[in-house]
């Protein structure tokens, strides 16, 4: 394995452009998973805290499986179990999104549950004695405080998600990791991996900046 790109600006630029297409797919997986799994996680957290056993029981099992088995296996399972032909069919990309979403929703749910339960009962009571309905207390009093409390653990998950998108390559979704792998084997050079690494690093740098900005925005109270 020799240096094939770094000493040739034109080839290097070409490689970056090709990997750039993969970055587009990676970012799509990342954003779609976040947009879907955060609200789903909220819903799951609510169900997990339900006093009704037939709601909280199955949800506990779901969370247990999602957190207790490799995400890679979950992706493979979902891809091979879902129909790929017929009226309702899933392509590789949708299968990956589905797998990431239900996996991350489980993690987010546990973070949200912790956040909600960390709000002192006095906050609920204060809302209640002012005549607010439960939902009003939740959305106006509890949830804003939960957002602040879960920011750091959620950031951790988001950073992990950036890296986990690489697992979509298991079912040959042509995202960054797949393309890097392909170019490593075709060029017998490890440089595409190096570039991919730097791109993941850059994406997480942005993630951390966003998190820091939010943290600052929420620091007007303690």
């Amino acid at each position: 394995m020799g240096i094939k790109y770094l000493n040739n600006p034109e080839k290097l630029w070409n490689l970056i452009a090709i990997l750039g297409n993969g970055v587009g797919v990676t970012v799509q997986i990342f954003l779609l998973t976040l947009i879907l799994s955060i609200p789903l996680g909220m819903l799951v957290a609510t169900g997990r805290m339900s006093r009704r056993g037939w709601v909280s029981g199955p949800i506990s099992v779901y969370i247990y499986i999602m957190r207790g088995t490799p995400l890679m296996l979950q992706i493979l399972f979902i891809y091979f179990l879902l129909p790929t032909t017929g009226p309702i069919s899933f392509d590789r990309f949708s299968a990956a999104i589905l797998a990431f979403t239900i996996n991350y929703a489980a993690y987010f749910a546990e973070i949200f549950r912790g956040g909600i339960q960390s709000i002192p009962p006095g906050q609920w009571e204060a809302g209640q004695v002012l005549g607010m309905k439960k939902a009003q207390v939740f959305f106006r009093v509890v949830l804003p405080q939960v957002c602040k409390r879960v920011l750091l653990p959620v950031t951790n998950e988001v950073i992990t998600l950036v890296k986990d998108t690489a697992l979509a390559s298991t079912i040959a979704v042509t995202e960054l990791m797949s393309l890097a792998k392909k170019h490593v084997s075709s060029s017998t050079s490890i440089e595409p991996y190096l570039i991919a690494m730097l791109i993941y690093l850059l994406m997480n740098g942005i993630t951390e900046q966003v998190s820091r900005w939010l943290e600052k925005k929420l620091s007007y109270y303690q």
Partner: protein
Amino acid sequence: MLKVINLEKQFDGLGVLKGISLEVRRGEVVAIIGRSGSGKSTLMRCVNNLEKADGGTILVDGQPLVKDGVYAPVKNQRSICLKMGYVFQNFNLFPHMSVLKNLTEAQHCVLKRPKAEAEKYARQLLKKVGLEDKEAAYPCQLSGGQQQRVAIARALAMDPELLCFDEPTSALDPLLTQEVLGVIRSLAKEKRTMVVVTHEMNFAREVADRVVFMEDGVIVADGTPQEVFDSEKVKAFIGLGD
């Protein structure tokens, strides 16, 4: 205004309220005193629907919150409880809202008051509790005494006909205690109906029209401050310096 008849409450099978009967008339200030653990907070929490009674009746302005242990439908419970305000021992202000927002939030989402009207009223109430210059502050920037005064203003913003306090000064040091008691005194002068659980005996003696002494889940004395503070049991209680 408030009528409690034979109220019972158990925690894990242990009787905490054992048949409490109490009446608060309009314009009256009632102080509730008694050892810690005697059930004062539980009584206040049941009256304000923060705890469910196991038996008995609570009438607010003639309307039953619970009658012989049977609760009104949830919707009625809320409208009945809106006649009452509640001030907690540890304030329970909303930390993510400014002082002004703490006062306007429920006016807006419960009473549907327009924003301008709610803010105007909030400022008026902040002035009443001596915090007109703090409307933009957040609760964490205020002293305990200031926080409790905001909490009182927040309760007043809902125009309660009865205001309940559960040891409003127990979390405060003596200096701050006085500023909060001062606000409650001024409310008493306005002839507001209030029930105040307190350990401040001088305050109870001066401000209350009636003092209720609780012991072990029952009311053992109920009368004018003079009558109650002269009874042997209460003398013994105060003598212990609880």
